[in-house]
């Protein structure tokens, strides 16, 4: 469903991604781990189409379409979802209004009928309960004065409403206490199904205790340096990233 080939990217003049390759199929859960500054979040943002990053080479195909040619909103309508590490506050726009507009934009883009206020309210109510989100949440402005945990839960609520084919969760566990993480992970597990792909981006192994990946990749200095099964995450947890770095430094000198 997602195919990343030799992807390179810069921000300003600084190379961040230096040739990333990754395939994600429906039903797969992938995790990308790596130290700070490895380029993990950059990869997520490039997939979503963030304007601050410039792709300098490589290809990304999503559901048979050249993802890099699409505007960010069209990527979302096609079924890509990225959960933000730092969700943005939008004063004056309510959660419900935001979600309703987003869902209808997606439905319209896919030739489906738009949901009426009543239909949407019903859907929102259902998903809200699954995510264990308080009812007053939906009337509040998007992320405004939300705690870190509330923001992350709100991201997962958006994912539940938008029902993506591929969800990229960027450091969803950062800043969460263990209870909040459990709720978020529970929400994600509820949404995951055989038709969907999931890409978890995380610094720690912790989240992977709650959402079990099928594949684990380690990214260092803009490249995936090691791939494996869930056992790789445990190894990283025990040994850190240092043992993976030398191969990279050698390569860097070449």
């Amino acid at each position, binding site marked *: 469903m997602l195919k990343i080939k030799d992807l390179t990217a810069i921000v300003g003049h600084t190379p961040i991604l230096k040739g990333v390759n990754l395939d994600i199929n429906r039903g797969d859960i992938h995790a990308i781990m790596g130290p700070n500054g490895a380029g993990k979040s950059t990869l997520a943002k490039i997939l*979503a*189409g*963030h*304007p*601050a990053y410039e792709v300098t080479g490589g290809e990304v195909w999503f559901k048979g379409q050249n993802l890099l040619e699409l*505007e*960010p*909103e069209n*990527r*979302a*309508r096609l079924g890509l*979802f*990225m959960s*933000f590490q730092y*969700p*943005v506050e*939008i*004063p*004056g*726009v309510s959660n419900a*209004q*935001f979600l309703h*507009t*987003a*869902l209808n*934009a*997606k439905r319209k*883009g896919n030739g489906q009928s738009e949901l009426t206020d009543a239909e949407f309210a019903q859907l929102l109510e259902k998903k809200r309960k699954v995510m264990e989100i308080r009812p007053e949440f939906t009337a509040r*402005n998007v992320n405004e004065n939300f705690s870190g945990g509330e923001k992350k839960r709100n991201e997962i609520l*958006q994912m539940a409403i*938008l029902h993506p084919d591929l969800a990229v969760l960027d450091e969803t566990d950062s800043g969460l206490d263990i209870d909040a993480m459990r709720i978020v992970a529970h929400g994600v597990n509820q949404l995951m199904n055989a038709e969907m792909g999931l890409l978890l981006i995380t610094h720690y192994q912790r989240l992977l205790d709650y959402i079990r990946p099928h594949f684990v990749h380690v990214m260092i200095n803009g490249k995936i340096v090691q791939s494996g099964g869930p056992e790789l995450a445990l190894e990283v947890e025990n040994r850190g990233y240092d043992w993976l770095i030398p191969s990279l430094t050698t390569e860097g000198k070449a």
Partner: protein
Amino acid sequence: MTAELALFSDYKYGFFTDVETDSLPQGLNEEMIRAISAKKEEPDFLLAFRLKAYEKWLHSTEPLWANVNYPPIDYQKMTYYSAPKKKPVLNGLSEVDPEVLRTFERLGIPLEEQKRLSNVAVDMIFDSVSIGTTFKKKLEEAGVVLCSISEAMHTHSDLVKKYLGSVVPIGDNFFATLNSAVFSDGSFVYIPKGVHCPMELSTYFRINDRESGQFERTLVIAEEGSYVSYLEGCTAPAYDTHQLHAAVVELIALDHAQIKYATVQNWYSGNPKTGEGGIYNFVTKRGRCAGIHSKISWTQVEVGAAITWKYPSCILQGDHSVGEFYSVALTNGQMQADTGTKMIHLGKNTRSTIISKGIAADLSKNSYRGLVKIAPRARGARNYTQCDSMLIGDACSANTFPTIEVGNASSQVEHEASTSKMNEEQLFYFQSRGISKEEAVNMIVNGFCKEVIKELPLEFAREAQALLSIKLENSVG
């Protein structure tokens, strides 16, 4: 297209209408003022009013404290009277110059009664002259007067004499004084005791002539226990020269009366690249809550004019009277706005609310300037002020200049202010959820302004929202 829409689309009102005009030559002197008065066949008290104002104007100086820049204005190079030659008769629009009628049609203001706006009575001012008023009959039945001030001078001269200059005195400020000397026309509204005006009243202002300044004078009188909601809209052709618009609006609310006054100002704002042309909007608007428990609300959506200098204010004289100011000022291109309000608390337990939303984009300058003054005798007075600014891009500026003077210990004043920036991250957040950038700007701006927009009459609120996003279409990414 409805009348509302005309005010609110992208600037397609920049056209000029070729009509035969009856104009006085350029320049300002006593003779000119006598000529204006004579053309309008005014009662003597008005000529005296004008001459007194002219005398004061000669000795007053142009205010330079506002946070705006413009080259000196040559007041002798301006025309102070210009009117379409074919004058309408008072009881019908059939004799109006067809070109003028077509202008209003193009602006989306249907003058023919059968096409009229549902439940909004409109008075049209073309350059300096009132073209006509719709719904006269229905208003008359309710005892409500909506007519041009030129007409009111004759039909309601006692009221005009009593109230003209009673809120904005003859020598109030440079521009108001100039207006008092040369004002040509404007709207007059009178709501009798106990009458709840059966419909929205509205005036549509159109500047057409290249050289003429526009100096309208609006007077709204709400008698005891009455209610009126009034809306004005403004457009002008796109000329490469500046036109001066120096209007005066006076509102009087007696005991338990309520006046809601809304403005949607979309004058031509000049060339956004060169800054050439556009209206200088130097306006004095003030209301007097003369009676106990009276209330005056100003709502303004200011999205046009090269320079705006405007502070719709309330004098809260009656005990328990209430003043409100809700404002959205949007500047883009090279526009400059210095706008805000004055709330003068004189009566006991008077209350005022100020909600100001400034949006600055491109190279524009947007300032809020406000005064909250609580007199020593205004015991128990309260004010709440909220001033929010939103910046779009890096080259614009937003400023806040609040002044608070509290003269007693039993009053309460609250002031909140914020500045935010509409940024790439916000827009990307919307886009990443499938919402286009245009729709995102629309939602952010209207979210930012919603406390003000909800104060507009319902039929105008939606259009005002559309106008805000259209204005910003080229300013965001």
